[in-house]
């Protein structure tokens, strides 16, 4: 869309006249006009584009916003230390920028503003976690606020400029520029503009302007993928870049200014079927205490409209919900039993779960082909103990306390799944065959929330050692069983320390399999993510010697991917880490309920990231000397995730670790938090061996329920 502005008119005319006279030259002059327009636009927007510098903070990998179903995938890279970009949004000192720029939780933020020689200390006021934007405040008045282009005027194909400060930090000079067009509007579930201008860390937080220097949006890394490892940042400079419309930002500015983070509005339903696009959106489950439950939505309801817009599939539902924040009210039209029904003023909930994981208080015996679940251990003071369940008892059926429709429990995973969606304080009925008896009895149990405990001692016997004899149990898949069988026939399965390369032959990793490995026993998989530089041969040997006894006794296999460069981990390496883990899972008997990401320092940051981004795989995250991210993702009842967070008492990042673990607990994740007395930034040593042993027991008990 070309607005022939008054100031341009004479220029345009000149061009046109020239065009008539000397056509070849005119083409050049048109280009010259365009170039002048770009430079003028740059100068115009320049005073509103500030330079942001930070000091301190963790050298980090970060998790995106609490938004597992699409929405700004978030930043997760090792952040450089260069200056970044921000945009003034109100004259009294508010600056909006990409949350990416503070991904490393810097201890200080400094902002340079055009026309001011002094630099100002910036304070983080709030973060919009749905759009990866952070609002800063500096104590300055009368700042120039750019003009926002209304969303309705933004057209696909119009020329835009991506503007940044990293390459041009002197605020009294024009910023850096990349030219492109608007490629699409309403991207990332309705939240972002897409452009083919080159967007990268050099301009995240900067404006996307038109040829008049008016601002369409603020540049951010973003990804529409559900839990993709390569969200947003991976697309830097690719011709796929995103900006959040300034009009939307201005609309939520008053809320951000109040200092409260904005999070995604959650309806609290899952859909039937896995196809987001193919079928009508039929409600599968309704989360307890969610907006959907309070409204009275029920499983089987077909969602027809949201805010008056027809939705034909689940993707369209997500698209309509995507732009909304916690607390926003929406209107939903559904079809139930052939009749349409409208719910007005449905107030969306937040990502923080109403309650934590459900707790029965038992450990199951593993690798047991018999139907039902044999109890390996009963937690003291647990609902199971109260109901007088004993070690050796076998749970065969489960159901609600009222009525008699009990469902057969086929396996451990079956029971766990059936319990996952219950509510705390719910009464359930269990059919149990007591140890040594034939006749089943029923007991009633009042469930609670899972407390954070690690038993001081666990029964050594944990497995029936019949992992390969599966009858009607889903995991691991049959194909793998066959493979294992075949392997066994052909040759001995390799054990000990094994060095390997990934398929692309560009990354190394190692495996440690105890020499007494028995494929009939399911092993826990611990993915070790080394701290920066600690991936030499001697480091690996040290780690293996720390762990080998436990690997054998507690059935643990270690896998240790190596970061590509000595400077540490970067986000794109997550794919390779997963590849290494998958190799172990395909070639050894691995218990999917006990896959742990374990790391220290930057490796610990990656472990946390891996935990949140690979929910289908990772069940536990154990870190030493790593700061948990400030914005955990919401809990998924069917994909439990637990944390074991360790820091040294004298580690300078201890306070940040403490704050991070508290945040995880706030999101209702079970967290074990241990402070090693008198220790700094270091891994377990002889003095702290008790905590390492506790970690091993924690790993052994990850399949508790």
């Amino acid at each position, binding site marked *: 869309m070309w607005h022939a502005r008054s100031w341009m008119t004479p220029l345009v005319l000149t061009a046109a006249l020239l065009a008539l006279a000397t056509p070849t030259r005119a*083409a050049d002059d048109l280009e010259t006009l365009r170039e002048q327009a770009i430079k003028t636009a740059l100068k115009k927007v320049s005073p509103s584009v500030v330079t942001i510098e930070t000091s301190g903070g963790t050298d980090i990998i970060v998790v995106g916003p609490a938004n597992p179903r699409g929405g700004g995938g978030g930043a997760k890279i090792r952040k450089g*230390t260069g200056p970044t970009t921000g945009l003034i949004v109100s004259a009294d000192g508010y600056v909006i920028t990409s949350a990416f720029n503070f991904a490393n939780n810097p201890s200080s933020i400094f902002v340079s503003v055009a026309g001011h020689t002094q*630099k100002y200390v910036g304070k983080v006021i709030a973060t919009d976690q749905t759009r990866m934007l952070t609002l800063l405040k500096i104590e300055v008045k009368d700042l120039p606020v750019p003009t926002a282009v209304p969303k309705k005027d933004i057209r696909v194909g119009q020329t835009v400029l991506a503007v940044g400060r990293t*390459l041009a930090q002197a605020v009294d000079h*024009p910023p850096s520029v990349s030219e492109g067009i608007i490629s699409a509007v309403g991207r990332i579930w309705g939240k972002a503009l897409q452009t083919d201008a*080159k967007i990268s860390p050099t301009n995240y937080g900067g404006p996307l302007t038109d040829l008049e220097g008016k601002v369409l949006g603020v540049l951010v890394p973003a990804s529409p993928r559900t839990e993709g490892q390569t969200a947003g940042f991976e697309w830097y*400079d690719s011709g796929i870049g995103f900006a959040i419309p300034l009009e939307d930002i201005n609309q939520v500015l008053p809320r951000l200014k109040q200092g409260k983070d904005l999070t995604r509005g959650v309806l609290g339903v899952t859909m039937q079927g896995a196809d987001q696009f193919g079928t009508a959106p039929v409600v599968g489950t309704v989360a307890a205490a969610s907006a959907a439950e309070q409204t009275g939505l029920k499983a089987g309801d077909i969602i027809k409209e949201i805010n008056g817009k027809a939705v034909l599939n689940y993707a369209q539902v997500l698209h309509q919900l995507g732009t909304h924040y916690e607390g926003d009210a929406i209107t939903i039209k559904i079809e139930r039993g052939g009749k349409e029904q409208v719910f007005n003023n449905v107030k969306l909930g937040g990502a923080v779960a109403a309650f934590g994981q459900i707790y029965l208080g038992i450990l199951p015996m593993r690798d047991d082909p018999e139907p039902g679940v044999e109890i390996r251990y009963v937690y003291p003071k647990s609902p199971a103990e109260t109901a007088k369940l004993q070690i050796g008892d076998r749970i065969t059926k489960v159901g609600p306390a009222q009525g008699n429709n009990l469902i057969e429990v086929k396996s451990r995973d079956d029971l766990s799944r059936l319990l996952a969606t219950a509510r705390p304080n719910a009464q359930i009925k269990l059919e149990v065959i007591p140890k040594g008896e034939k006749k089943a009895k029923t007991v009633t149990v009042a469930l609670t929330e899972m407390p954070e405990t690690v038993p001081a001692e666990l029964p050594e016997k944990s497995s029936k050692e019949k992992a390969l004899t599966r009858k009607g149990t889903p995991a691991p898949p049959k194909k793998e069983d066959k493979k294992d069988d075949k392997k066994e026939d052909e040759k001995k399965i390799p054990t000990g320390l094994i060095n390997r390369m990934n398929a692309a032959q560009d990354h190394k990793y190692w495996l440690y399999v105890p020499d007494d490995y028995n494929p009939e026993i399911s092993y826990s998989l611990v993915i070790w993510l080394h701290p920066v530089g600690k991936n030499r041969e001697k480091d690996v040997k040290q780690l293996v010697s720390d762990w080998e006894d436990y690997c054998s006794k507690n059935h643990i296999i270690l896998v240790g991917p190596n970061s590509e460069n000595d400077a540490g981990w970067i986000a794109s390496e997550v794919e390779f880490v997963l590849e290494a883990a998958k190799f172990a899972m395909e070639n050894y008997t691995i218990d999917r309920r006990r896959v742990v990401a374990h790391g220290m*320092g930057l490796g610990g940051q990656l472990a946390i990231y891996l935990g949140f981004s690979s929910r289908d795989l990772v069940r536990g995250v154990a870190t030493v000397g790593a700061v948990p991210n400030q914005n955990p993702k919401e809990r998924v009842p069917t994909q439990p995730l637990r944390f074991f967070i360790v820091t040294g008492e004298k580690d300078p990042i201890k306070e940040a670790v403490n704050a991070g673990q508290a945040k995880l607990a706030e999101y209702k994740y079970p967290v074990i938090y241990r402070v090693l007395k008198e220790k700094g*930034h270091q891994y377990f040593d002889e003095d702290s061996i008790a905590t390492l042993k506790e970690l091993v027991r924690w790993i052994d008990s990850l399949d508790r329920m």
Partner: protein
Amino acid sequence: MIRQRWMVCSAVMLLACITASSARADGSLAQVAQQVNPKLVKVFGSGGFRGLASYGTGLIVSPDGYILTVVSPLLDTRDLRVHLSDGRRYHCKMICMEPELDIALVKIDTKEKLDDLPYFDISALAKKQPVDAGTGVLAFSNQFQIATRDEPMSVQRGRVAAYAKLQARRGIFAAAYKGNVYVVDAITNNPGAGGGALTTRSGELIGIIGKELQNEATNTWINYAIPISAAVEVIEAENKKRMVSIAEVVEKKEKYAPSRKDELKTKEENYHGIVLVPDVVEFTPPYVEEVRPGSPAEKAGLLPDDLIVYIDGEQIPNIKAFKEIMGTIRPGTKIALEVRRGDKLQTLSLTVAEPRKKPR
């Protein structure tokens, strides 16, 4: 109303103009490409393994076959060859390299009489003012070795994103060349592009495309060219300062003496009296733990708990950066320290002293 009519009128004329001349605009670009291509060569040398390209691009800078390109492992061979735009092939010999500019000069090695090659007049071009952000540019190179023998180079279109120093962005781009570069928004960071030409839309050479450069911290690549006007100050043995420039390399040819940085002198021994908090994590902010009594730091008014933010305008994000920069400051130098004290930034002036004699 009048204005509106003007606008409509202009818009119509503009449209007409665009339609009528778009073909010719392409024609004019083609003309530019025709002018530039004969001054470019395809360079072939060693490499071809471990991801190193064995090919690159070069600029002819004299009628008798001197060629300017970027320093790369590709040049490390006795069998260096170039292909001219007309398909002629020649062997080349190395004339000189300038490490601080990251450029190399080679010469066509032939018994044939060569004196009429089309070339870029570097001396004249080096005198021109640099262009600013937003300027439209063209990039010519043999990236990915798409062009062979007499085929013309690949041409890309883009804009100057910024004219800026890379090195100033501490920790972001570690390049040999410390001066200003043109960052462009075309993707030129490709194998074989190094040594190619960055020109204005009218084909005037403004830069030589730099070799592939990656930001180690974020794994991002940067698209840049070293300006033809590049000139940087080097401190050589005995603290002698010297300016080196592309023009000088091209003018002096065989007589050019590459700069030799005095490696021993880069680490300065000095005393400031600032004791920072222990540097234990990778990103420890430079908080002052203690100020030595009677030290330059005390005289400057530094206090414990101050956070050092800038030294001489350069940001100090962590203790590592503090140590690096203090290691380059000579005794007797006055530096401007900006520190965060509470929520305010304060500027202090500190004169770095000679290292103290060790007590015996």
